């Protein structure tokens, strides 16, 4: 016990010594020293308590997953026919560069996700069928996006909407395709199936489906409508 107390004392001294070498005391640095001491205390603490129930991490250095990996990127995932998910990371240096190089950037500038419908195109940034914007804040690093229309391809730019309405792309995502939300309109020549027969098969098949949507209404021209 005494040895332990001595070690804590020594550790404390060590922290103070290191802190002392910092010429100028600032509030932030004091905080840093305090937290260092707190860490020291935490390291020695468990000895005073009974063993934690589950110390699985013992052999691993105690650490958390990194908050970022130092890459500018945005990645899309498909959740279902109506929703996609985006996560992103913009490094601090990229933000700084943007601040430096964009004179018109001010507090009115918005960080937005621009969601492009790129279905059946080779997307070049300007040939999307349509797009919509979602305003996000600088603390967000992921977003669940409701795309509403199934069976489309989507690409998302994370960028800045400047006060003069110009859009500045920071990063562009991969392209994903959402699935169809009902049966296909395409019928096979060789394996033709009549509307009536397929409607019955679909009813038999989807009657107990986990897909919580209404049964499709079959229209004469083969275009189906899925009621909400």
């Amino acid at each position: 016990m005494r040895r332990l107390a001595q070690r804590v004392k020594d550790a404390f001294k060590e922290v103070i010594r290191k802190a002392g070498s910092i010429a100028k005391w600032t509030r932030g640095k004091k905080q840093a020293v305090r937290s260092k001491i707190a860490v020291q205390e935490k390291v020695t603490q468990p000895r005073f308590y009974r063993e934690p129930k589950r110390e699985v991490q013992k052999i691993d250095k105690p650490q958390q997953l990194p908050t970022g990996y130092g890459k500018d990127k945005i990645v899309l995932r498909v959740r279902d026919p109506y929703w996609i998910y985006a996560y992103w990371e913009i490094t601090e240096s990229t933000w700084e560069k943007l601040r430096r190089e964009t004179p018109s950037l001010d507090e009115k500038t918005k960080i937005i996700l621009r969601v492009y419908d790129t279905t059946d195109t080779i997307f070049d940034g300007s040939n999307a069928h349509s797009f919509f914007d979602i305003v996000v804040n600088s603390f967000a690093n992921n977003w669940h996006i409701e795309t509403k229309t199934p069976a489309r391809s989507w690409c998302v730019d994370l960028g800045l909407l400047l006060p003069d309405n110009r859009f500045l792309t920071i990063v562009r995502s991969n392209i994903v395709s959402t699935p169809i939300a009902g049966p296909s309109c395409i019928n096979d020549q060789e394996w033709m199936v009549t509307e009536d027969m397929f409607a019955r098969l679909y009813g038999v098949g989807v009657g107990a489906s986990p897909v919580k949507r209404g049964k499709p209404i079959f229209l004469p021209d083969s275009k189906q409508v899925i009621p909400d």
Partner: protein
Amino acid sequence: MNKGYLCLILHSHLPYVRHPEHEKFLEERWLYEAITETYIPLIRVFEGLLRDNVDFRMTLSLSPTLLSMFSDSLLQERYLKHINNLIELASKETERTRWQPEFNQLAHMYLEIFKRAKETFLRYQKNLINAFKYFQDIGNLEIITSAATHGYFPLMEATKPSVRAQLKVACQHYKESFGRDPKGIWLPECGYQPGDDQLLKDEGINYFFVDAHGLLHGQPRPKYGAFAPVYCKSGVACFGRDLESSKQVWSSIEGYPGDYFYRDFYRDIGFDLDLEYIKDYIHLDGARIATGIKYYRITAATNDKQVYIPSRATDKAAEHAGNFIFNRQKQIEYLYDFLQKKPIIVSPYDAELFGHWWFEGPQWLDFLIRKLYFDQDIIKMVTPSEYLRENPRHQKVSPSFSSWGWKGYSEVWLQGTNDWIYRHLDEASERMTELVKFHPQASGLLKRALNQALRELLLSQSSDWAFIMATGTHVDYAVLRTKQHLLRFNRLFEEIKGNSIDEHWLSEIEYRDNIFANIDYRVHQ
């Protein structure tokens, strides 16, 4: 006259829960309970059928993580301890309940079950792979594989090298376990991402399954709905799950397992008896957990449970098996007239439903198979391979993205509770690809580190972790496992890049995360 086929599939999977660092570890019990309550009862059903010359057909998927635990000597020894402990407890129970005949009968039933489990376990040299392999080799079972650690493919779309690694490691492990290549695969969570069929083809896999809407929303429209397989572009066959038969077994409301005469899952002596009496049979720190000895029947939607009567439950299981067959016959006759073709009804279930959740499930299966075999000829039991041999011609259709999870897509594994994992999983996957590129021919310590990096990556990709986070029980454990494997991976990555591999630490994590002894890191590309 035979008018259609029934393809029963049991998907058996548990995440890799092996914790040598602790003498007793709560989550390891998932495996022990499933061995006693599901896998061994299933094996005993198969043995009984064989003894009585019932030529049955069933498809069983055994996930590589589960197979790895079956063959792990540490877990084998621990299971023996576990079952011995249960035998001891059940013996005590036969004493304690001596003057309560209705409970005493049940205590003897459990004692018998546990003794039989031990006997079966030892008879297969403590390795249940031996049992399943036997039934495959004599032609009754078709064992298929699943992804190496049950990674959910639709959410790995951006990291295909990991999908390839999940498949290659799984196939390699299957071959080591069963001495042949797998013919089919159960895609984890029935999750199909269009295009993945080609990756299956690359591994020599002939067929997989999707949920009904995966086929029904396929393009072009499938002529026979979900009642015949289709060929994907790659030529791999895709079967669709039948929802009607699924619901009859699965549904907690309309399904068989909810019958009031069946045994109640939740009432367990681990919670009911005095702590002093039960303390040696529950968790080390005195936390109350289920022991497996349960004396009550479901009774009704009430907490006032009545005592379980095995003979009544057995009658129910027989009745339900009869009902299932009756419904399948009606379904098949209707479809046969309607389609002018023999339909195939594909009925997949989680194996752990049988015996673990639904205590009478193995009995039901036993009655079902016997009745199908002896009492009727409308339905023929079939394995997918057998069916494809008999019926080689099928429509070409591209199935749609789908899963058998809640709402039919990926929401279970991608929602507020678990979406944070994907940035880390993606990064780790990209890093692994980078390592493989930089070290095409590693040897010695470097090779060990690279192989271990792939083990950690695969373990972090188990769909179980995201699933558990979404369901809200055991969340801490799922978060811990995700982080732990990713942190170990990241450290290996740094050490490999910095040419500073800590051999002592590497040995330690090789010992702890010892899955897939013969893994080759180069499959990740």
